[in-house]
């Protein structure tokens, strides 16, 4: 197909996304990467039955950790596509690159502190009024 995807996307091959541990994703971020996504087979199509389902849960777990420490959980993502979907692969690579570009460099490299507000605070760092919080 000779399709081009952004050159900033580095591919790490694993036998199945079920091999992707939460620690791999964290280590990738720790090494200074701005974002990392897992591209697995479509749900229900896993050759190892539940590998991609496990991967999705681990991605969710890492997202929660990032949320808790004040890093945007959007820096990790899970996508599902089949091996025959070249154009979709390129589309995802572009989409994720754009998303990360809009988030800017990782705070791990800049040391600029939280990039998302604490729970119960607005983006400006002010506490939400109690009533509003309870109404939600």
């Amino acid at each position: 197909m000779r399709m081009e995807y952004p050159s900033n996307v580095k591919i790490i091959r694993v036998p199945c996304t079920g091999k992707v541990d939460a620690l791999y994703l964290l280590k990738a971020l720790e090494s200074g990467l701005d974002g990392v996504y897992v591209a697995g087979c479509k749900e229900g199509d896993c050759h190892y039955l539940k590998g991609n389902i496990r991967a999705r849960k681990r991605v969710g777990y890492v997202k929660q950790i990032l949320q808790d420490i004040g890093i945007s959980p959007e820096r990790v993502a899970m996508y599902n596509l089949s091996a025959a979907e070249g154009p979709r692969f390129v589309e995802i690579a572009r989409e994720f690159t754009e998303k990360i570009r809009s988030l800017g460099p990782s705070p791990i490299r800049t040391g600029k502190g939280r990039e998302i507000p604490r729970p119960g605070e607005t983006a400006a760092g002010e506490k939400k009024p109690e009533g509003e919080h309870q109404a939600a």
Partner: protein
Amino acid sequence: MIIGHRKPLEEILKMLEPFDKIILAGCKGCVAVCNAGGEKEVGILASAIRLARKKDGKDIEVKEITLERQCDPEYIDQLQNVAGDHQAVLSIACGVGVQYLAERYKSTPALPGLNTDFMGGSREQGVWVERCQGCGNCVLHLTGGICPITRCSKSLLNGPCGGSSKGKCEINPDVECGWQLIIDRLKSLGLLEALYEQIMPYKDWLTSRDGGPRTITREDMRE
């Protein structure tokens, strides 16, 4: 086994604020089995701590060690060459491990990374349930192998109470009534009349926590 779960990251990070060189100590015992404090969890938590601190521009050095057990002095001793070089030890063992570290290393603060919950087992992958409260005087032979102290929300010895409805406990419709379970089990064992009809006398709680911290001594094993 002893079941625990990780403290909220925010609480852990607050504890670590004054430090920039710590040991993160895991345990290969119970908490490794319940996926809270083993080698893998040490790796994930260490990574999360480093990420959180780097993000704030305040890097932290985290030495990752997982001991065979943290409830035996001989394994706690394995930190003796490194404890002095670090400002604190964050332990993700149960509360026993944290206290053993604190007792052994007088000048190094020992911090808890887990909340220790209960003695129990796994019901399915990712779900753990309480089964024993360590009352020190087991009655399982009288109750069909189901613990009234643990499974009954009120720890009644002669149940059920009026809060039992359709086999569920009044505290929560998802909680089974311990005494309903006991009765059903005794029925299936054909022991209902022999055991359930007997009123159990009040329990001497001195063998439990009411008697203060407990010690078991085996003279035949002492050095």
